[in-house]
């Protein structure tokens, strides 16, 4: 199986400052990948590279067998920290539809476009059903809870039937039960539909049951491997260049102790 994402000696710079460099990476089709690391280590930057929004300053990258940005229609993307306040008077369903048709010029007119419109509608209904958002898809999105909005936005990323799903901190600002259910949802799409899921997170624990691979960014570098290989005292200490300790609690949750925040660069 060819790699869905391949990076070779890749580096990214914001102006003069190098965010990360020397990154070699292969993500296989159907893998569930967690992207971890402290603030500012370049996790979102990694997604921006995969989307073709940011060019490498060195090395090479391929995404779905082409240069980044060329297979955009096969990538579903959930940007970081989005929420809609109460003044947004648009139905969740219409937000989901943007993932399918938002970039098309023109304006859909009522009573026109019969068959295509019916297909679009059926596709949206199927995705809403799949993520469990049917009950609130016809409400204004601003009136939905944080967890409901996140499911609708994941539906927006999924509606084009992507081969690669990029989720930037989808668990942030969710409570623990919602973190668990959104993680399970992403994992289910990975297993059932063979979608490669790349999920950026702060905390590895909600993802631990599902992860095939971890990419850990810190100290201007990245390490990839199974959670058992990467989230260890030895690997992380070497990556940070500082003493970091990984503790396993009795319930199996991992705690990384003493990780310094990366303040040398800022991600976005």
């Amino acid at each position, binding site marked *: 199986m060819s790699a869905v994402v391949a990076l070779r000696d890749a580096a990214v710079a914001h102006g003069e400052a190098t965010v990360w460099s020397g990154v070699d990476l292969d993500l296989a089709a159907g893998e569930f990948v967690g992207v971890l690391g402290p603030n500012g280590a370049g996790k979102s930057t990694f997604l921006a590279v995969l989307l073709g929004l940011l060019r490498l300053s060195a090395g090479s990258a391929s995404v779905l067998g082409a240069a980044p940005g060329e297979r955009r229609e096969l990538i579903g*993307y959930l940007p970081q920290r989005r929420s809609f306040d109460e003044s947004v*008077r*648009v139905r969740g369903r219409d937000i989901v539809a*943007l993932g399918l*048709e*938002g970039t098309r*010029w023109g304006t859909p007119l009522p009573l026109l476009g019969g068959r295509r419109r019916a297909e679009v509608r059926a596709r949206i209904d199927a995705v809403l059903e799949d993520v469990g958002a049917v009950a609130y898809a016809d409400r*204004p999105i601003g009136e939905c809870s944080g967890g409901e909005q996140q499911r609708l936005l994941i539906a*927006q990323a999924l509606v084009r039937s992507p081969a690669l799903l990029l989720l930037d901190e989808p668990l942030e600002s969710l409570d623990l039960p919602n973190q668990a259910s959104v993680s399970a949802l992403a994992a289910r799409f990975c297993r059932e539909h063979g979608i490669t899921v790349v999920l950026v997170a702060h905390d590895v624990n909600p993802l631990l049951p599902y992860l095939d691979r971890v990419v850990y960014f810190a100290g201007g570098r990245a390490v990839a491997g199974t959670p058992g290989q990467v989230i260890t005292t030895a690997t992380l200490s070497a990556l940070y260049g500082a003493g970091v300790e990984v503790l396993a609690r009795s319930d199996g949750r991992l705690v990384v102790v003493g990780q310094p925040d990366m303040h040398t660069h800022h991600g976005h």
Partner: protein
Amino acid sequence: MNPSFSANPITDLNELLQYPFMVNALAAATIVALVGALIGWFVVLRRESFVCHTLSVMSFPGASGAALAGLPLASGYFAFALAGALAIAFGSRAGARRSLSHESAVVGSVGAAALALGFLFLSLYGGVLESVETLLFGSSVGITVGQVRTLAVVGLLAATALAAIGRPLFYASIDEQAARADGVPVRALAIAFLVLLGLAVAAIAQIVGVLLTFALLVAPAATAQQLTSRIGLSLALAVALALVEAWAALTLSYFTNLSLGFYVTSIALALYAIARAARELRR
């Protein structure tokens, strides 16, 4: 002329339509309502009400500047609205990573400069310009067939342009990050929309005045968005509300001899208040 209200719609309508100025006023109001409500719907969605207001204020230096330079007033309206739209677009880096506080400071400064310039031009001109009151509040009398034609052409162009960019503009307006990642030209659309808004506002302000432009553009769309979250219905409702406001205001103003502006704004405000209250009650 001694208008009398008979409460018989047919008789009243006949009375209204026997005066050419009233026919012109109704035609102009209809075009303004149609186009203004559609553009206003995006103004509300994009939270650019303040920008919209400022662009209509540009009409003041536009009209007085054109009078001073001895040019047709319409050319001043369009030139200044366009200049205002571009100043706001580039000054606030519209559609770039947005900083709302920076944006509103730029918009406010442009608006203040417009008012100052307007008064300067007016005092330099010294002659008889249509009264400042008419400039601000418009007048239902004295709309010429030529003006209605200009309005129709600008309105048609604006509506066509809006239809062409409608869906990506909606995407960029409501979900900027995702739209940008999807390759939607967010910044180009933001600039294009400001220019479109400027041109439409310039055309509308010539008829209904600087202040009422805002009431006819923003209020019906804001009311419609309170009433429904279905996009198509919301747009249709905005147009319908704008038409009702414009026609009712013209008719009432004719029969009661009170200012058109008073009726437009109070009907718009009343409808918005009712819609808002209805929404609060339903929850």
